[in-house]
């Protein structure tokens, strides 16, 4: 049994960063500020992935999410004019209903997470002290290996999905085809 990769302090630090970043994403007027807050949230989440012994997912999170998708977002924010959007009303007329619906969903989450069966919660103390393994190789074996690679077909379908998305994005964004 190896000790955990980091102390609980880091979990609470990263969790607080994520929550503050998330609140800033949904409250800022300027879309660029929202994007910056979202990047902060994504990077903190990559840190949590490292705490969960998932270095490959953490790398993918930083390279693809913070580096790829968010740059795409920033490009589009630059393409559309944000000056006018900043001066307008930021929340729609149904905001009260939205908050109530989210509160109901939150109540559902709390109810599920505090449910006890035979005196134990549904998600008990996982044995979270499992040591570091060959994470990237194991993921590659699941994705590509002939014997254990049960996600090979799903991987191919994912590439098809990306192709469709590329064509779709070009068709949508192009002025005249």
């Amino acid at each position, binding site marked *: 049994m190896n000790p955990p990769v980091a102390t609980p302090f880091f979990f609470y630090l990263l969790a607080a960063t994520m929550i503050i970043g998330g609140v800033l*994403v949904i409250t800022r007027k300027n*879309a660029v500020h929202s994007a910056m807050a979202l990047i902060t949230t994504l990077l903190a*989440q990559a840190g949590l992935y490292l705490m969960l012994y998932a270095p490959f997912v953490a790398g993918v999170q930083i390279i693809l999410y913070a580096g790829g998708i968010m740059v795409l977002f920033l490009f589009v924010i630059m393409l559309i004019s944000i000056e006018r959007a900043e001066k307008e009303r930021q929340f729609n007329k149904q905001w009260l209903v*939205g908050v109530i619906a989210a509160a109901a969903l939150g109540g559902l989450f709390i109810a599920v*997470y505090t449910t006890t069966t035979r005196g134990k919660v549904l998600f008990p103390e996982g044995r979270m002290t499992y040591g570091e393994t060959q994470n990237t190789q194991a*993921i590659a074996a699941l994705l590509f290996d002939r014997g254990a690679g049960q996600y090979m077909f799903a991987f191919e379908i994912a590439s098809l999905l990306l192709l469709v*998305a590329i064509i779709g994005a070009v068709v*949508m*964004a192009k002025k005249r085809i």
Partner: protein
Amino acid sequence: MDAMLHISTLHYLVLGAALFLLGVIGVLTRRNVVIVLMSIELILNAVNLNLVAFSRYWQGIHGPSALHGQVFAIFVITDAAAEAAVGLGILIAFFRNKETVNVDEVNLLKW
């Protein structure tokens, strides 16, 4: 105090739930389409955090190479990339036609 000092799966699930709720509030209340799309990214990331935490839990039961949750998280990231590309393409087309980025002004299909 013991719950504070020992990070379990439930800690990650609660954090994921909080992020999910923030994303839901953003989707339901904001008018700016860009921020609605970012809120969807928040939701997807909350799900990813849950998946990786469950993967960790599953590893404790089935051995170190039971990484199905992490594989799923990678597929979700792929989906998020596709969704962001198509969504932002639609946004550009919408902005070109209506000169606005507010979702409540999208009413062409409204009866």
